[in-house]
């Protein structure tokens, strides 16, 4: 090991320590599964390690990791089979939540995971990562107009799904609260 590689490993470790949770959560918003989110984040960090010398340090590391996460997610979904390789232990299940506190969030979440994957990726990048249209287009590998239409369609799909869920809920629970 040279001093240069030790420095490189140190910088990489610092970056992983500071950004692992954020990257994993972005992957979770995309795939809606903590196990798969961890796989995607791991693949992104491995690719980042291999490309560490090539990447310009001027703030583009985050952009590179975001791009790898989104493309890994889209490519994994495109495959017929998926190679699930876990280099770490299985993450534990999240602690159970109070049903009343998570009710509204759960409704939106259920609707979000039914949105088509490219629309969901556009929504997450635009409204969670707070990226510009140009940056989102660069990550998704499409035009700015396509990003606009994906976001608009994604929101429309979400609204439709939420209305459908509300209709189902009102049909199951009639006026007065008495179940049939």
């Amino acid at each position, binding site marked *: 090991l040279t001093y240069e590689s030790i420095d490189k*490993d140190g910088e*990489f*470790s*610092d970056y*992983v*320590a500071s950004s*692992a*949770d954020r*990257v*994993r*959560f972005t992957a*979770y*918003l995309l795939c809606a599964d*903590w196990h798969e989110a*961890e796989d995607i*984040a*791991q693949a992104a*960090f*491995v690719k*980042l*390690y*291999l490309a560490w010398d090539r990447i310009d340090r001027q703030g583009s590391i985050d952009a590179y990791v975001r791009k790898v996460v989104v493309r890994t997610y889209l490519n994994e979904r495109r495959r017929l089979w998926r190679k699930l390789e876990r*280099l*770490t*232990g299985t*993450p*534990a*299940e*999240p*602690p159970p*939540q109070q049903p009343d506190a*998570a009710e*509204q*969030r759960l409704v*939106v*979440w259920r609707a*979000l995971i039914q949105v088509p994957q490219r629309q969901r990726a556009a*929504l*997450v990048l635009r*409204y*969670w990562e707070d990226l510009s249209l140009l940056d989102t287009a660069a990550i998704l590998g499409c035009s700015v107009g396509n990003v606009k239409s994906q976001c608009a369609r994604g*929101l429309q799909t*979400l*609204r439709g799904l*939420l209305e459908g869920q509300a209709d189902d809920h009102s049909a199951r629970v009639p006026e007065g609260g008495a179940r049939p």
Partner: protein
Amino acid sequence: LTEAELIAAFAEIRAQPAPPSGLTPQAMLGAGRSARRRRRIVALAGGTMVAAATAVTVMIGLPAGSDTPPSVPIPPAEEPLVTPTPAITRPPTPSPVEGGHTPPTPLDPTTPVTSAPPTPDRPATSIPVSP
């Protein structure tokens, strides 16, 4: 659902406790190093295979490239039948004419000019003598 409501929903989801993460810096370093090692091994194996394939192709292709049949020893030829004929004296060749005109190529003076020997079906050429 508006954009602001979606952003708020994302923030709410983020605020919920997540399962413990296995993405430690040490684990990522180990994964990155093993991936780099795998990549180097694959590159080395690929280069070796290409070199071996090239060497085998060259070794197979060199003898196959010459399609000439194996050489057979040629028996010694019979003595050619030489009919002694008088040599014809050739006039001296004229000197090249200046002015761009190329004179006809002279014959090789060392080669003796012989006439074909007479055969049964072709009599010897006789030059009629003018009276």
